């Protein structure tokens, strides 16, 4: 990374060269995960703190396994068990963690920009593991890794992202990354879930799933984020499933070798039918597998930088 990447806060400021670097490094770690001993001694003596202010099983476990396979010491802190519930401010939490000299802090927070705030107050490398409705860069990297493994390349692929575009940090990070690597990205949602100005990201906008899926190489389905819906933006779950759910008939409109993706958690029978999710074109579990390799690459490339340079 030429010493340039100290934190991974989002895809927005990440040049294509660095994205490819993360993906290429992840290929090496993918190999490590298939060996008899799925562990390397590389980050022995380094400490990784998983600081999760929002519920997550998949992402936190993925980072934890990634850190442990690199021989780092991994500490998990979740909001329900921390002092935050006792009224501690984010800054005090960070200062206390900083005093214990971690090398990398992995942060998930419901407030957009929280990881950026933490990065300004710690010597550790900071990885954004999802901040509010803003970004989820490691998810976008693992999705790109999965696509590249399945298709051999990313440039010129037609990628359809359908779901709660307005509230999804996954959609945002993916749209940024995939367009930067030359894919043609389509986003699709009911109009109430399509924010204005999406075109600035260089994506095509659809308000019906059929035309959005037509001829696509990759179909990525996202769930409706009920926890972020503050008003009635969709008529009903059943209505949404009927018009925006991916079933076999709908998938038939995509390219015959199209792959189906979902970052999880899935709502079966809502945005995706069970027989599509479990079908031969689904790479949903490949995404989970890729997640560990990609996060190993991120921790590896950030950890050695951490603690050696002054505050940003």
């Amino acid at each position, binding site marked *: 990374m030429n010493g340039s990447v100290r934190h991974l806060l989002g895809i927005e400021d990440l040049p294509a060269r660095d994205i490819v670097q993360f993906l290429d490094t992840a290929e*090496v770690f993918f*190999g490590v995960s298939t060996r008899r001993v799925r562990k390397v001694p590389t980050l022995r003596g380094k400490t990784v703190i998983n600081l999760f202010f929002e519920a997550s099983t998949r992402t936190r476990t993925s980072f934890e396994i990634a850190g442990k396979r690199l021989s780092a010491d991994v500490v998990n802190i979740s909001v329900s068990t921390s002092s935050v519930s006792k009224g501690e401010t984010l800054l005090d939490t960070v200062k206390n963690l900083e005093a214990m000299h971690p090398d990398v802090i992995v942060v998930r927070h419901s407030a957009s920009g929280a990881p950026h705030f933490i990065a300004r107050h710690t010597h550790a490398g900071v990885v954004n593991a999802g901040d509010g409705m803003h970004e989820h860069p490691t998810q976008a990297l693992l999705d790109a890794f999965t696509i590249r493994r399945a298709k051999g390349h990313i440039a010129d692929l037609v990628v359809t992202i359908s779901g709660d575009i307005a509230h999804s940090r996954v959609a945002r990070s993916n749209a940024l990354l995939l367009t930067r690597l030359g894919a043609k990205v389509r986003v699709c949602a009911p109009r109430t879930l399509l924010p204005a100005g999406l075109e600035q990201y260089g994506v095509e906008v659809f308000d019906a799933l059929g035309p959005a899926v037509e001829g696509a190489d990759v179909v990525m389905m996202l769930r409706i984020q009920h926890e972020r819906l503050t008003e009635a933006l969709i008529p009903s779950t059943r209505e949404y499933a009927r018009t925006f759910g991916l079933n076999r008939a709908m998938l038939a409109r995509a390219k015959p070798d199209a792959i189906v993706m979902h970052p999880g958690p899935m709502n079966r029978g809502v945005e995706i039918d069970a027989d599509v999710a479990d079908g031969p074109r689904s790479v949903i579990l490949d995404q989970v597998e890729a997640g560990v390799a990609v996060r190993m690459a991120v921790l590896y*490339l950030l950890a050695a930088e951490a603690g050696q340079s002054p505050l940003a």
Partner: protein
Amino acid sequence: MTTASTQPTRVVMDKCAVAAVLQRMAGEIVARHSDDVSLALVGVRRGGIPLAARLHALLTTAGRAEVLVGTVDITLYRDDAATALPNPQIGRSEIPFEVEGRVVILVDDVLYTGRTTRAAIDAVMDYGRPRAIELAVLVDRGHRELPVQADYVGLRIATTRRERVEVRVDPQDEHVASVEVLGPAENPPSSVY
């Protein structure tokens, strides 16, 4: 690259000498291991890779069939991995066979501090439990910092720590073209690997 004027160079092996030395090493490997021992050559990235390929060809010519070849990258196993800058160009380790029960011969170009060999041994062990690990090097230049020794040595040369040993590979046929010792550089490389 420093200019040639500050670095008097001596050639310690030319292409012919390298070929002869590898031939002898192949003979030593054959003599040491009977036909019922399954051998695998693992080249240490990157200098050991062309040498492992050469030794493999020579062993095959000498009638040792079914010698397997792999490569190992030691980046993730370096003892300074956690303090050095990350290497964005980690090479792939490719050991596409079971090491269990095999005699694995690590192949490298230059044996110096022994740290690379220590890392390579650890990397191979993470693929399984070989019957034995041996070490074949084209050049042993001394100055060990760990208790490591080679089983097959092409050439032992006396060097100072400030000198550099350069193994040049002919890009045409991927054979080692020459081994040179470069005189004291004004800024000796900080890395001892």
